[in-house]
Protein backbone atom coordinates (compact mmCIF):
# COMPACT_ATOMS: atom_id res chain seq x y z
CA UNK A 1 0.00 0.00 0.00
CA UNK A 2 1.24 3.41 -0.89
CA UNK A 3 -0.86 5.11 1.74
CA UNK A 4 0.41 4.59 5.28
CA UNK A 5 -3.02 4.05 6.84
CA UNK A 6 -4.21 0.45 7.06
CA UNK A 7 -6.87 -0.59 4.55
CA UNK A 8 -9.85 -1.85 6.52
CA UNK A 9 -12.45 -2.41 3.83
CA UNK A 10 -11.59 -3.23 0.24
CA UNK A 11 -14.44 -3.90 -2.17
CA UNK A 12 -13.97 -4.01 -5.92
CA UNK A 13 -16.47 -4.72 -8.69
CA UNK A 14 -19.02 -6.25 -6.34
CA UNK A 15 -22.23 -7.65 -7.83
CA UNK A 16 -25.04 -9.19 -5.84
CA UNK A 17 -28.26 -10.49 -7.37
CA UNK A 18 -31.37 -11.79 -5.65
CA UNK A 19 -33.78 -13.96 -7.60
CA UNK A 20 -32.34 -12.66 -10.87
CA UNK A 21 -32.55 -8.99 -9.94
CA UNK A 22 -29.40 -7.01 -9.25
CA UNK A 23 -29.25 -5.62 -5.72
CA UNK A 24 -25.71 -4.31 -5.91
CA UNK A 25 -24.12 -3.35 -9.22
CA UNK A 26 -20.41 -2.97 -9.63
CA UNK A 27 -19.85 -1.54 -6.17
CA UNK A 28 -16.36 -0.50 -5.18
CA UNK A 29 -15.44 0.95 -1.85
CA UNK A 30 -12.37 1.30 0.24
CA UNK A 31 -12.01 2.50 3.75
CA UNK A 32 -8.87 3.22 5.71
CA UNK A 33 -8.30 2.92 9.40
CA UNK A 34 -10.17 5.64 11.32
CA UNK A 35 -12.64 6.41 8.54
CA UNK A 36 -16.20 7.23 9.50
CA UNK A 37 -18.43 6.54 6.51
CA UNK A 38 -22.02 7.66 6.28
CA UNK A 39 -23.88 5.34 3.90
CA UNK A 40 -27.10 6.88 2.66
CA UNK A 41 -29.59 5.96 -0.03
CA UNK A 42 -33.25 5.17 -0.60
CA UNK A 43 -35.01 2.21 0.99
CA UNK A 44 -34.32 -1.03 -0.82
CA UNK A 45 -31.18 0.48 -2.29
CA UNK A 46 -29.03 -2.34 -0.91
CA UNK A 47 -27.50 -0.67 2.16
CA UNK A 48 -28.21 -3.57 4.51
CA UNK A 49 -27.14 -6.01 1.81
CA UNK A 50 -23.78 -4.28 1.50
CA UNK A 51 -23.23 -4.58 5.26
CA UNK A 52 -24.16 -8.24 5.12
CA UNK A 53 -21.65 -8.81 2.34
CA UNK A 54 -19.03 -7.17 4.56
CA UNK A 55 -19.97 -9.61 7.32
CA UNK A 56 -19.76 -12.59 4.97
CA UNK A 57 -23.47 -13.33 5.37
CA UNK A 58 -24.21 -12.84 1.69
CA UNK A 59 -21.98 -14.27 -1.00
CA UNK A 60 -21.29 -11.91 -3.88
CA UNK A 61 -22.01 -13.09 -7.39
CA UNK A 62 -18.93 -11.32 -8.62
CA UNK A 63 -16.22 -9.08 -7.28
CA UNK A 64 -13.68 -8.96 -4.53
CA UNK A 65 -14.39 -8.23 -0.86
CA UNK A 66 -11.63 -8.09 1.72
CA UNK A 67 -11.94 -6.96 5.31
CA UNK A 68 -8.54 -6.34 6.95
CA UNK A 69 -7.21 -8.12 3.89
CA UNK A 70 -9.14 -11.26 4.84
CA UNK A 71 -12.24 -13.04 3.62
CA UNK A 72 -15.23 -11.42 5.37
CA UNK A 73 -16.08 -14.59 7.28
CA UNK A 74 -12.56 -14.90 8.65
CA UNK A 75 -12.57 -11.25 9.70
CA UNK A 76 -15.93 -11.45 11.47
CA UNK A 77 -14.56 -11.69 15.00
CA UNK A 78 -12.90 -8.30 14.48
CA UNK A 79 -16.09 -6.64 13.29
CA UNK A 80 -18.83 -5.24 15.51
CA UNK A 81 -22.32 -5.24 14.03
CA UNK A 82 -25.56 -3.62 15.00
CA UNK A 83 -28.45 -4.91 12.88
CA UNK A 84 -31.26 -2.70 11.66
CA UNK A 85 -33.88 -2.21 14.37
CA UNK A 86 -33.37 -5.10 16.74
CA UNK A 87 -36.83 -6.52 17.14
CA UNK A 88 -37.11 -8.24 20.42
CA UNK A 89 -39.68 -9.05 23.00
CA UNK A 90 -39.66 -6.05 25.34
CA UNK A 91 -40.47 -8.30 28.28
CA UNK A 92 -37.68 -10.76 27.51
CA UNK A 93 -36.14 -11.74 30.84
CA UNK A 94 -32.60 -10.50 30.31
CA UNK A 95 -30.39 -7.82 31.82
CA UNK A 96 -28.52 -5.23 29.79
CA UNK A 97 -25.19 -6.78 30.74
CA UNK A 98 -26.30 -10.20 29.45
CA UNK A 99 -27.34 -8.68 26.13
CA UNK A 100 -23.86 -7.16 25.83
CA UNK A 101 -22.26 -10.51 26.69
CA UNK A 102 -23.78 -11.95 23.49
CA UNK A 103 -21.31 -9.83 21.57
CA UNK A 104 -18.51 -11.94 23.04
CA UNK A 105 -19.86 -14.99 21.24
CA UNK A 106 -17.47 -14.81 18.26
CA UNK A 107 -14.53 -14.68 20.68
CA UNK A 108 -15.77 -17.32 23.10
CA UNK A 109 -17.00 -19.74 20.48
CA UNK A 110 -19.49 -22.55 20.33
CA UNK A 111 -20.16 -24.57 23.50
CA UNK A 112 -17.66 -22.65 25.62
CA UNK A 113 -19.12 -20.68 28.53
CA UNK A 114 -18.37 -16.99 29.02
CA UNK A 115 -15.52 -16.34 31.42
CA UNK A 116 -14.53 -13.57 33.81
CA UNK A 117 -12.75 -11.70 31.02
CA UNK A 118 -15.97 -11.64 28.98
CA UNK A 119 -17.92 -10.21 31.90
CA UNK A 120 -15.32 -7.53 32.52
CA UNK A 121 -15.28 -6.62 28.84
CA UNK A 122 -19.07 -6.27 28.94
CA UNK A 123 -18.90 -3.91 31.92
CA UNK A 124 -16.27 -1.85 30.10
CA UNK A 125 -18.36 -1.71 26.92
CA UNK A 126 -21.35 -0.49 28.90
CA UNK A 127 -19.15 2.08 30.56
CA UNK A 128 -17.94 3.25 27.15
CA UNK A 129 -21.51 3.99 26.09
CA UNK A 130 -22.34 5.62 29.42
CA UNK A 131 -24.58 2.80 30.61
CA UNK A 132 -22.49 1.40 33.45
CA UNK A 133 -25.07 2.14 36.14
CA UNK A 134 -27.87 0.45 34.23
CA UNK A 135 -25.96 -2.77 33.57
CA UNK A 136 -28.20 -4.89 35.77
CA UNK A 137 -31.46 -3.37 34.57
CA UNK A 138 -33.86 -5.50 32.52
CA UNK A 139 -33.53 -4.58 28.85
CA UNK A 140 -37.26 -3.86 28.56
CA UNK A 141 -37.07 -1.37 31.44
CA UNK A 142 -34.71 0.90 29.45
CA UNK A 143 -35.75 3.73 27.14
CA UNK A 144 -35.36 3.42 23.37
CA UNK A 145 -32.15 5.45 23.42
CA UNK A 146 -30.72 3.44 26.28
CA UNK A 147 -31.51 0.21 24.49
CA UNK A 148 -29.68 1.48 21.38
CA UNK A 149 -26.67 2.14 23.59
CA UNK A 150 -26.82 -1.39 24.91
CA UNK A 151 -26.79 -2.70 21.34
CA UNK A 152 -23.82 -0.50 20.50
CA UNK A 153 -22.08 -1.85 23.60
CA UNK A 154 -22.84 -5.34 22.32
CA UNK A 155 -21.22 -4.44 19.01
CA UNK A 156 -18.24 -2.94 20.86
CA UNK A 157 -17.65 -5.70 23.38
CA UNK A 158 -15.66 -7.86 21.00
CA UNK A 159 -13.21 -4.94 20.77
CA UNK A 160 -13.79 -4.55 17.03
CA UNK A 161 -11.64 -2.58 14.65
CA UNK A 162 -14.60 -2.04 12.34
CA UNK A 163 -18.11 -1.12 13.44
CA UNK A 164 -21.07 -1.65 11.09
CA UNK A 165 -24.23 0.13 12.22
CA UNK A 166 -27.45 -0.37 10.29
CA UNK A 167 -29.77 2.58 10.94
CA UNK A 168 -28.97 2.63 14.62
CA UNK A 169 -31.13 5.64 15.44
CA UNK A 170 -34.44 4.38 14.07
CA UNK A 171 -37.09 5.02 16.67
CA UNK A 172 -34.90 7.19 18.89
CA UNK A 173 -35.92 10.76 19.63
CA UNK A 174 -33.90 13.75 18.37
CA UNK A 175 -32.12 14.58 21.63
CA UNK A 176 -31.03 10.99 22.11
CA UNK A 177 -29.91 10.85 18.48
CA UNK A 178 -27.51 13.75 18.93
CA UNK A 179 -26.10 12.15 22.04
CA UNK A 180 -25.75 8.90 20.15
CA UNK A 181 -23.83 10.47 17.25
CA UNK A 182 -21.54 12.21 19.71
CA UNK A 183 -20.83 8.82 21.23
CA UNK A 184 -19.94 7.37 17.82
CA UNK A 185 -17.65 10.33 17.19
CA UNK A 186 -15.80 9.66 20.41
CA UNK A 187 -15.42 5.97 19.56
CA UNK A 188 -14.11 6.91 16.15
CA UNK A 189 -11.65 9.55 17.31
CA UNK A 190 -10.48 8.19 20.65
CA UNK A 191 -10.39 4.47 19.92
CA UNK A 192 -9.69 4.83 16.21
CA UNK A 193 -12.52 2.47 15.33
CA UNK A 194 -13.49 2.55 11.67
CA UNK A 195 -17.24 3.04 11.37
CA UNK A 196 -19.79 2.47 8.65
CA UNK A 197 -23.05 4.15 9.57
CA UNK A 198 -26.13 3.39 7.49
CA UNK A 199 -28.76 6.06 7.65
CA UNK A 200 -31.23 7.78 5.41
CA UNK A 201 -30.87 11.04 7.19
CA UNK A 202 -27.94 12.88 5.59
CA UNK A 203 -28.69 16.04 7.49
CA UNK A 204 -28.26 14.32 10.79
CA UNK A 205 -25.07 12.46 10.04
CA UNK A 206 -23.12 14.79 7.75
CA UNK A 207 -21.57 16.79 10.58
CA UNK A 208 -20.17 13.65 12.21
CA UNK A 209 -18.86 11.50 9.38
CA UNK A 210 -15.76 12.16 7.28
CA UNK A 211 -16.93 10.29 4.19
CA UNK A 212 -20.29 9.91 2.53
CA UNK A 213 -21.44 7.37 0.01
CA UNK A 214 -24.85 7.05 -1.57
CA UNK A 215 -26.15 3.63 -2.55
CA UNK A 216 -28.95 2.67 -4.87
CA UNK A 217 -27.73 -0.52 -6.52
CA UNK A 218 -24.76 1.51 -7.67
CA UNK A 219 -22.52 3.23 -5.17
CA UNK A 220 -21.84 6.93 -5.56
CA UNK A 221 -18.64 7.56 -3.69
CA UNK A 222 -15.62 9.73 -4.23
CA UNK A 223 -13.60 8.82 -1.18
CA UNK A 224 -14.64 12.05 0.46
CA UNK A 225 -17.47 13.81 2.20
CA UNK A 226 -18.65 15.37 -1.06
CA UNK A 227 -21.39 14.07 -3.27
CA UNK A 228 -22.45 15.87 -6.40
CA UNK A 229 -26.03 16.89 -7.08
CA UNK A 230 -26.11 14.40 -9.97
CA UNK A 231 -24.99 11.59 -7.66
CA UNK A 232 -27.85 12.21 -5.31
CA UNK A 233 -30.36 12.66 -8.08
CA UNK A 234 -29.28 9.47 -9.82
CA UNK A 235 -29.31 7.51 -6.61
CA UNK A 236 -32.67 8.70 -5.40
CA UNK A 237 -34.18 8.80 -8.86
CA UNK A 238 -36.00 12.02 -8.11
CA UNK A 239 -35.05 15.68 -7.99
CA UNK A 240 -33.40 16.58 -4.72
CA UNK A 241 -31.92 19.85 -3.74
CA UNK A 242 -28.44 19.75 -2.36
CA UNK A 243 -26.90 22.59 -0.45
CA UNK A 244 -23.36 21.51 -1.05
CA UNK A 245 -21.30 23.94 0.94
CA UNK A 246 -23.37 24.64 3.98
CA UNK A 247 -22.62 22.93 7.25
CA UNK A 248 -24.37 20.71 7.94
CA UNK A 249 -24.89 19.45 4.40
CA UNK A 250 -28.46 18.99 3.45
CA UNK A 251 -30.35 16.87 1.03
CA UNK A 252 -33.85 18.11 0.56
CA UNK A 253 -36.52 16.09 -1.08
CA UNK A 254 -38.72 18.08 -3.40
CA UNK A 255 -42.27 18.19 -2.14
CA UNK A 256 -44.85 16.99 -4.62
Amino acid sequence: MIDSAKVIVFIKGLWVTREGHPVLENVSLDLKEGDFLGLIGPNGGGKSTLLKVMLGLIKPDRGEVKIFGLEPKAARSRVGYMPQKTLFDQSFPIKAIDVVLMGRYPRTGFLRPYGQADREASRRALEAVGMKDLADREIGALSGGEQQRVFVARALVSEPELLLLDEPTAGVDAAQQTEFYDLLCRLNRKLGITIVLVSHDVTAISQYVNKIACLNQRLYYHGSKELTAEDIEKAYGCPVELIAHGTPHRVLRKHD
Partner: protein
Amino acid sequence: MIELPLDIFQYEFMRSALAAGLAASVLCGVIGIYVILNRIVFISDGIAHAAFGGIGLGYFLGLDPLAFGVCSALVTAAGIGMVSSRQRVSEDTAIGVFLATGMALGIMFMSLSKGYARDLYGYLFGDILAVTRSDVLLILALTSVVLIVVYLLYKEFLILSFDPVYGEAMGLPVQSLRLLLLCMVASSVVVLIKIVGIIMVIALLTIPGAISRQRLKSLPGIMAGSVLLGSIFVFVGLIVSYLLDVPSGATIILTASLAFFISTLAGR
Protein backbone atom coordinates in the same frame (compact mmCIF):
# COMPACT_ATOMS: atom_id res chain seq x y z
CA MET B 1 -58.17 -30.35 57.01
CA ILE B 2 -58.32 -33.10 54.49
CA GLU B 3 -55.51 -35.54 54.95
CA LEU B 4 -53.59 -36.14 51.75
CA PRO B 5 -54.17 -39.69 50.57
CA LEU B 6 -50.44 -40.32 50.24
CA ASP B 7 -50.96 -44.04 50.74
CA ILE B 8 -52.06 -44.16 47.09
CA PHE B 9 -48.37 -44.03 46.21
CA GLN B 10 -47.85 -47.49 47.62
CA TYR B 11 -49.12 -48.76 44.27
CA GLU B 12 -46.55 -49.30 41.58
CA PHE B 13 -48.68 -47.65 38.88
CA MET B 14 -49.11 -44.57 41.07
CA ARG B 15 -45.38 -44.32 41.67
CA SER B 16 -44.74 -44.68 37.94
CA ALA B 17 -47.34 -42.02 37.27
CA LEU B 18 -45.74 -39.68 39.75
CA ALA B 19 -42.22 -40.31 38.43
CA ALA B 20 -43.36 -39.70 34.86
CA GLY B 21 -45.28 -36.61 35.93
CA LEU B 22 -42.34 -35.10 37.78
CA ALA B 23 -39.90 -35.79 34.94
CA ALA B 24 -42.40 -34.23 32.58
CA SER B 25 -42.55 -31.15 34.81
CA VAL B 26 -38.80 -30.74 34.51
CA LEU B 27 -39.06 -30.99 30.73
CA CYS B 28 -41.96 -28.52 30.61
CA GLY B 29 -40.22 -26.13 32.89
CA VAL B 30 -37.13 -25.91 30.76
CA ILE B 31 -38.40 -26.44 27.21
CA GLY B 32 -41.67 -24.61 27.82
CA ILE B 33 -39.75 -21.40 28.51
CA TYR B 34 -37.97 -21.65 25.16
CA VAL B 35 -41.28 -22.39 23.46
CA ILE B 36 -42.71 -19.19 24.95
CA LEU B 37 -39.65 -17.02 24.30
CA ASN B 38 -39.22 -18.22 20.73
CA ARG B 39 -42.96 -17.97 20.06
CA ILE B 40 -43.19 -21.49 18.76
CA VAL B 41 -46.33 -22.47 20.63
CA PHE B 42 -48.24 -23.35 17.47
CA ILE B 43 -45.35 -25.40 16.04
CA SER B 44 -45.14 -27.29 19.30
CA ASP B 45 -48.84 -28.04 19.20
CA GLY B 46 -48.50 -29.15 15.58
CA ILE B 47 -45.68 -31.50 16.50
CA ALA B 48 -47.76 -32.97 19.31
CA HIS B 49 -50.64 -33.74 16.99
CA ALA B 50 -48.38 -35.07 14.25
CA ALA B 51 -46.70 -37.40 16.73
CA PHE B 52 -49.98 -39.27 16.78
CA GLY B 53 -49.16 -40.69 13.36
CA GLY B 54 -46.13 -42.47 14.80
CA ILE B 55 -47.98 -43.55 17.91
CA GLY B 56 -50.68 -45.10 15.75
CA LEU B 57 -48.10 -46.92 13.64
CA GLY B 58 -46.31 -48.31 16.69
CA TYR B 59 -49.64 -49.38 18.14
CA PHE B 60 -50.64 -51.06 14.88
CA LEU B 61 -47.34 -52.94 14.64
CA GLY B 62 -47.55 -53.97 18.27
CA LEU B 63 -44.33 -52.12 19.07
CA ASP B 64 -43.62 -49.33 21.55
CA PRO B 65 -46.01 -46.52 20.51
CA LEU B 66 -44.16 -43.89 22.53
CA ALA B 67 -40.83 -44.56 20.81
CA PHE B 68 -42.57 -44.36 17.43
CA GLY B 69 -44.22 -41.16 18.61
CA VAL B 70 -40.83 -39.63 19.37
CA CYS B 71 -39.59 -40.57 15.90
CA SER B 72 -42.57 -39.11 14.06
CA ALA B 73 -42.43 -35.96 16.19
CA LEU B 74 -38.76 -35.53 15.24
CA VAL B 75 -39.54 -36.10 11.56
CA THR B 76 -42.33 -33.52 11.80
CA ALA B 77 -40.07 -30.99 13.49
CA ALA B 78 -37.54 -31.38 10.69
CA GLY B 79 -40.26 -31.47 8.04
CA ILE B 80 -41.89 -28.24 9.13
CA GLY B 81 -38.52 -26.52 9.13
CA MET B 82 -37.61 -27.82 5.69
CA VAL B 83 -40.92 -27.25 3.94
CA SER B 84 -41.23 -23.70 5.19
CA SER B 85 -37.63 -22.76 4.40
CA ARG B 86 -37.40 -24.34 0.93
CA GLN B 87 -40.83 -24.05 -0.59
CA ARG B 88 -43.11 -21.09 -0.84
CA VAL B 89 -45.19 -22.29 2.06
CA SER B 90 -45.47 -20.22 5.19
CA GLU B 91 -44.56 -21.92 8.41
CA ASP B 92 -48.04 -21.91 9.91
CA THR B 93 -49.46 -23.46 6.74
CA ALA B 94 -46.84 -26.21 6.91
CA ILE B 95 -47.75 -26.79 10.56
CA GLY B 96 -51.44 -27.06 9.72
CA VAL B 97 -50.75 -29.66 7.05
CA PHE B 98 -48.42 -31.77 9.23
CA LEU B 99 -50.80 -31.55 12.17
CA ALA B 100 -53.79 -32.89 10.29
CA THR B 101 -51.82 -35.49 8.36
CA GLY B 102 -50.34 -36.92 11.56
CA MET B 103 -53.71 -37.08 13.26
CA ALA B 104 -55.32 -38.74 10.24
CA LEU B 105 -52.55 -41.34 10.00
CA GLY B 106 -52.79 -42.04 13.72
CA ILE B 107 -56.54 -42.57 13.60
CA MET B 108 -56.18 -44.74 10.49
CA PHE B 109 -53.54 -47.00 12.04
CA MET B 110 -55.37 -47.31 15.33
CA SER B 111 -58.68 -48.15 13.71
CA LEU B 112 -56.95 -51.03 11.94
CA SER B 113 -55.94 -52.43 15.33
CA LYS B 114 -57.89 -54.03 18.16
CA GLY B 115 -58.89 -52.22 21.35
CA TYR B 116 -59.06 -49.04 19.37
CA ALA B 117 -61.56 -46.88 21.24
CA ARG B 118 -60.16 -47.09 24.78
CA ASP B 119 -56.53 -46.56 23.78
CA LEU B 120 -57.41 -43.79 21.37
CA TYR B 121 -59.05 -42.00 24.26
CA GLY B 122 -55.88 -42.47 26.32
CA TYR B 123 -53.66 -40.86 23.69
CA LEU B 124 -55.99 -37.98 23.02
CA PHE B 125 -56.75 -37.10 26.61
CA GLY B 126 -53.88 -38.66 28.53
CA ASP B 127 -53.70 -41.67 30.79
CA ILE B 128 -50.99 -41.10 33.31
CA LEU B 129 -52.06 -44.14 35.31
CA ALA B 130 -51.25 -46.35 32.35
CA VAL B 131 -47.59 -45.27 32.34
CA THR B 132 -45.40 -48.37 32.33
CA ARG B 133 -41.92 -48.86 33.73
CA SER B 134 -40.42 -48.72 30.25
CA ASP B 135 -42.28 -45.46 29.65
CA VAL B 136 -40.72 -44.07 32.81
CA LEU B 137 -37.26 -45.10 31.63
CA LEU B 138 -37.81 -43.49 28.22
CA ILE B 139 -39.09 -40.32 29.88
CA LEU B 140 -36.11 -40.15 32.25
CA ALA B 141 -33.69 -40.69 29.37
CA LEU B 142 -35.29 -37.93 27.28
CA THR B 143 -35.33 -35.57 30.25
CA SER B 144 -31.63 -36.15 30.90
CA VAL B 145 -30.68 -35.59 27.27
CA VAL B 146 -32.68 -32.36 27.08
CA LEU B 147 -31.19 -31.06 30.33
CA ILE B 148 -27.65 -31.79 29.18
CA VAL B 149 -28.20 -30.09 25.82
CA VAL B 150 -29.76 -27.01 27.42
CA TYR B 151 -26.95 -26.81 29.95
CA LEU B 152 -24.24 -27.05 27.29
CA LEU B 153 -25.90 -24.69 24.83
CA TYR B 154 -27.37 -22.21 27.29
CA LYS B 155 -25.60 -19.19 25.83
CA GLU B 156 -26.35 -20.21 22.24
CA PHE B 157 -30.04 -20.73 22.97
CA LEU B 158 -30.18 -17.39 24.75
CA ILE B 159 -28.92 -15.59 21.63
CA LEU B 160 -31.26 -17.63 19.43
CA SER B 161 -34.26 -16.73 21.58
CA PHE B 162 -33.43 -13.07 22.04
CA ASP B 163 -32.06 -11.96 18.72
CA PRO B 164 -31.51 -14.60 16.02
CA VAL B 165 -30.71 -11.98 13.36
CA TYR B 166 -27.72 -10.82 15.35
CA GLY B 167 -26.79 -14.39 16.19
CA GLU B 168 -26.61 -15.26 12.53
CA ALA B 169 -24.41 -12.25 11.85
CA MET B 170 -22.08 -13.44 14.62
CA GLY B 171 -21.73 -16.85 13.00
CA LEU B 172 -24.14 -18.67 15.30
CA PRO B 173 -25.56 -21.73 13.50
CA VAL B 174 -29.10 -20.38 13.85
CA GLN B 175 -30.83 -22.87 11.56
CA SER B 176 -29.29 -25.90 13.24
CA LEU B 177 -30.02 -24.56 16.71
CA ARG B 178 -33.64 -23.91 15.80
CA LEU B 179 -33.95 -27.44 14.49
CA LEU B 180 -32.35 -28.80 17.66
CA LEU B 181 -34.79 -26.79 19.74
CA LEU B 182 -37.71 -28.19 17.74
CA CYS B 183 -36.35 -31.71 18.28
CA MET B 184 -36.23 -31.11 22.02
CA VAL B 185 -39.76 -29.76 21.87
CA ALA B 186 -40.76 -32.88 19.93
CA SER B 187 -39.29 -35.18 22.58
CA SER B 188 -40.92 -33.25 25.40
CA VAL B 189 -44.27 -33.17 23.70
CA VAL B 190 -44.37 -36.94 23.28
CA VAL B 191 -43.62 -37.41 26.96
CA LEU B 192 -46.44 -35.04 27.80
CA ILE B 193 -48.85 -36.92 25.54
CA LYS B 194 -48.57 -39.81 27.96
CA ILE B 195 -49.48 -37.52 30.85
CA VAL B 196 -52.20 -35.21 29.57
CA GLY B 197 -52.90 -36.36 26.02
CA ILE B 198 -52.37 -34.80 22.62
CA ILE B 199 -55.19 -32.29 22.89
CA MET B 200 -53.92 -30.72 26.11
CA VAL B 201 -50.16 -31.02 25.70
CA ILE B 202 -49.69 -27.40 24.83
CA ALA B 203 -51.29 -26.19 28.06
CA LEU B 204 -48.87 -28.12 30.24
CA LEU B 205 -45.96 -26.98 28.08
CA THR B 206 -46.78 -23.30 28.36
CA ILE B 207 -48.77 -22.60 31.55
CA PRO B 208 -46.03 -23.22 34.15
CA GLY B 209 -43.62 -21.07 32.16
CA ALA B 210 -46.18 -18.34 31.60
CA ILE B 211 -46.97 -18.04 35.31
CA SER B 212 -43.33 -18.20 36.30
CA ARG B 213 -42.51 -15.48 33.81
CA GLN B 214 -45.15 -13.20 35.28
CA ARG B 215 -43.42 -13.41 38.65
CA LEU B 216 -39.71 -13.88 38.09
CA LYS B 217 -37.04 -12.01 36.16
CA SER B 218 -33.97 -14.10 35.49
CA LEU B 219 -34.12 -16.92 32.97
CA PRO B 220 -32.69 -19.64 35.27
CA GLY B 221 -35.11 -18.47 37.98
CA ILE B 222 -38.06 -18.65 35.59
CA MET B 223 -37.03 -22.16 34.58
CA ALA B 224 -36.76 -23.31 38.19
CA GLY B 225 -40.08 -21.71 39.10
CA SER B 226 -41.68 -23.31 36.10
CA VAL B 227 -40.38 -26.78 37.03
CA LEU B 228 -41.72 -26.33 40.55
CA LEU B 229 -45.13 -25.18 39.32
CA GLY B 230 -45.34 -28.05 36.84
CA SER B 231 -44.59 -30.55 39.61
CA ILE B 232 -47.26 -29.04 41.82
CA PHE B 233 -49.87 -29.17 39.05
CA VAL B 234 -49.09 -32.81 38.29
CA PHE B 235 -49.06 -33.79 41.97
CA VAL B 236 -52.24 -31.93 42.87
CA GLY B 237 -53.94 -33.06 39.68
CA LEU B 238 -53.14 -36.70 40.39
CA ILE B 239 -54.47 -36.59 43.93
CA VAL B 240 -57.61 -34.64 43.06
CA SER B 241 -58.40 -36.93 40.16
CA TYR B 242 -57.98 -39.91 42.48
CA LEU B 243 -60.21 -38.40 45.19
CA LEU B 244 -62.97 -37.33 42.79
CA ASP B 245 -62.50 -40.24 40.41
CA VAL B 246 -62.20 -37.97 37.34
CA PRO B 247 -59.73 -38.15 34.41
CA SER B 248 -56.19 -37.29 35.53
CA GLY B 249 -55.11 -35.41 32.37
CA ALA B 250 -58.01 -33.01 32.50
CA THR B 251 -57.58 -32.51 36.24
CA ILE B 252 -53.89 -31.62 35.84
CA ILE B 253 -54.68 -29.13 33.09
CA LEU B 254 -57.56 -27.56 35.02
CA THR B 255 -55.31 -27.19 38.06
CA ALA B 256 -52.74 -25.46 35.87
CA SER B 257 -55.19 -23.16 34.12
CA LEU B 258 -56.86 -22.24 37.41
CA ALA B 259 -53.44 -21.21 38.71
CA PHE B 260 -52.80 -19.27 35.51
CA PHE B 261 -56.03 -17.28 35.75
CA ILE B 262 -55.51 -16.55 39.43
CA SER B 263 -51.94 -15.43 38.78
CA THR B 264 -53.00 -13.25 35.86
CA LEU B 265 -55.90 -11.65 37.72
CA ALA B 266 -53.77 -11.09 40.80
CA GLY B 267 -51.44 -8.95 38.66
CA ARG B 268 -47.89 -8.24 39.55
